[in-house]
């Protein structure tokens, strides 16, 4: 006998949801038959707002597109404008940017660890990981003046040079974080409960992954070795030594392990950056922001964020304000067409696990 189908509204306020959004589920028993993503709870019309703001005024906006990881947004807007303008960026600024981007990746992964294990019912990990993330936020506070919204990377370089003694603090924090990773292994990655909940769940079909627009850890969790930092190295990634970990299986577990291994890579990248960072300028000044005209042109730039390829399509019509800034976060695809697809057949209790593993982030979907 076929079970009766019922509709279940998952979210918009739900502890397992990654931000305010809702997934409308049709379930038969506890098996999902159909899933529909509903967003709109966090729409702030940033893209529209930027069309009314000068280029410089757009920088404090874009970071707000993503709380866990604002920096790729700043990076993208900066690089897009630089590409259109043909503006050079001082070498030191490029190193600083990479440091910021990797710190932000680590911070994002700590937050993800909390969310991912929290949805598996492991409540100690979030306590730890959010606390450990705070040590990275301390670094951001010192470097940028803000813990969450850094407003630090902008066209021409970065906003301020490293404060005195900052590099040492970063290295110390890296040592600390590195020392913590085995603890997380014991608590989370080796944990039988987590493994049970992650393995074989939320599987993405490897053959379809590219066509479906899967990027980042979910893609590498299908055993496909692609990473923007390697495919199209920006800033100084081509001068740094790191590997792109991949795992087979396409499931939550593979994605988790990819992230876990990437944390080590990020720590190593940050150490290399600090070692290799040259002196000199950190900012190639743009004109006075009130009169900063960006020549007509367009650019598509992408950055490897903690959730994968983060793209910006930016168009200038030569005026003081952007003609168009179109943000394409990984969640735009992961959280809608992909999620709706792989939720079918899944168990209700795995919805939150799957969403977390895909890095679904509604503010990125609706901006």
């Amino acid at each position, binding site marked *: 006998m076929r079970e009766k189908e019922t509709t279940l509204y998952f979210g918009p306020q739900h502890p397992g949801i990654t931000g305010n959004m809702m997934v409308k589920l049709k379930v038969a028993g506890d098996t999902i038959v159909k899933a529909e993503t509903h*967003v*709109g709870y966090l*729409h702030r*019309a940033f*893209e*529209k*707002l930027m*069309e*009314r*703001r*000068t280029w410089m*005024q757009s920088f404090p906006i874009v970071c707000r597109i993503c709380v866990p990881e604002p920096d790729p947004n700043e990076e993208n807007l900066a690089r897009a404008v630089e*590409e259109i303008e043909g503006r050079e960026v001082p070498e030191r600024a490029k190193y600083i940017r990479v440091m910021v981007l990797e710190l932000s990746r680590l911070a994002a992964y700590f937050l993800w660890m909390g969310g991912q294990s929290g949805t598996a019912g492991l409540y100690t990990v979030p306590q730890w990981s959010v606390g450990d993330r705070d040590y990275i936020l301390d670094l951001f506070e010192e470097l940028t003046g803000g813990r969450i919204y850094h407003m630090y990377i902008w066209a021409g370089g970065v906003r301020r040079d490293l404060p005195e003694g900052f590099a040492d603090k970063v290295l110390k924090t890296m040592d600390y974080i590195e020392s913590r990773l085995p603890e997380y292994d014991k608590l989370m990655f080796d944990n039988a409960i987590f493994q049970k909940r992650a393995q074989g769940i939320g599987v993405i079909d490897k053959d379809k992954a*590219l*066509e*479906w*627009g899967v990027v980042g850890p979910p893609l590498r969790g299908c055993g496909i070795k*692609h990473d923007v930092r390697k*495919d*199209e190295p920006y800033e100084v990634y081509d001068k740094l030594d790191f590997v792109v970990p991949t795992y087979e299986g396409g499931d939550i577990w593979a994605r988790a392990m990819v992230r876990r291994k990437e944390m080590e890579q990020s720590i190593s990248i940050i150490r290399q950056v600090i070692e290799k960072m040259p002196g000199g300028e950190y900012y190639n000044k743009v004109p006075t922001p*009130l009169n900063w005209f960006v020549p007509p042109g*367009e650019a*598509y730039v*992408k950055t490897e964020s903690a959730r994968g*390829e983060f*793209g910006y*399509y930016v*168009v200038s019509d030569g005026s*003081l304000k952007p*003609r*168009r800034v*179109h943000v*394409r976060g990984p969640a*735009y*695809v992961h959280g*809608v*067409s*992909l999620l709706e*697809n792989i939720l079918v057949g899944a168990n209700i209790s795995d919805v939150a696990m799957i969403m977390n593993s895909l890095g679904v982030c509604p503010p990125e*979907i*609706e901006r």
Partner: protein
Amino acid sequence: MDKDFINENKTIEEIKNTFHSAEAKLQRKNRIIVKLRSDLIPPFLSYAKNYLSFDHLAHFSCVDWIEDNQFELVYILYSYEKNIIAIVKTRIDREKAEFVTVKHLWRQAETFEREFHEMYGINFTGNNRLTEFILEDWDDIPPMRRDFDTMQYSKENFYTRPGREDAQDVREVITKKSGEKIPDFAKEFSVRKLK
């Protein structure tokens, strides 16, 4: 042919040979721009995906060129194999904003098309899910159209807390003191409110 861009230029050649009317050019390393008549977009995208290995629809964008009375649809394709991004562009009429879906090529195109339907008022035939996406009960003009005035909208729909009416305009205060009269034709150049 530039030695540095062998891959890019080869792809451009291939495109031009297949689609004679396509304007294809190198933008920079790893980037080519292809401009096409709108009716050629579906066959081109299918060709790009199936024959040129542009399997990843990295992005899909829309730009309102209100002064030309056109929308520009921008498909940003990526070939992992070639490591090239193709920015494929076409213009469609803005008044009768209609186009065809490409969701049969990339399912995620459906989401973009829903958004453009909602935000620009473009109808994508073949996409049967052009339902509400981000907005709710919206009854104004599609808000990403350039002629939708966010400032006006917020003035009409939100109230401003009292207490800031004493704000002055610096330029006005100075002209008041000096007696300077700014002629009307110059005023647009003194407006420093950037919003």
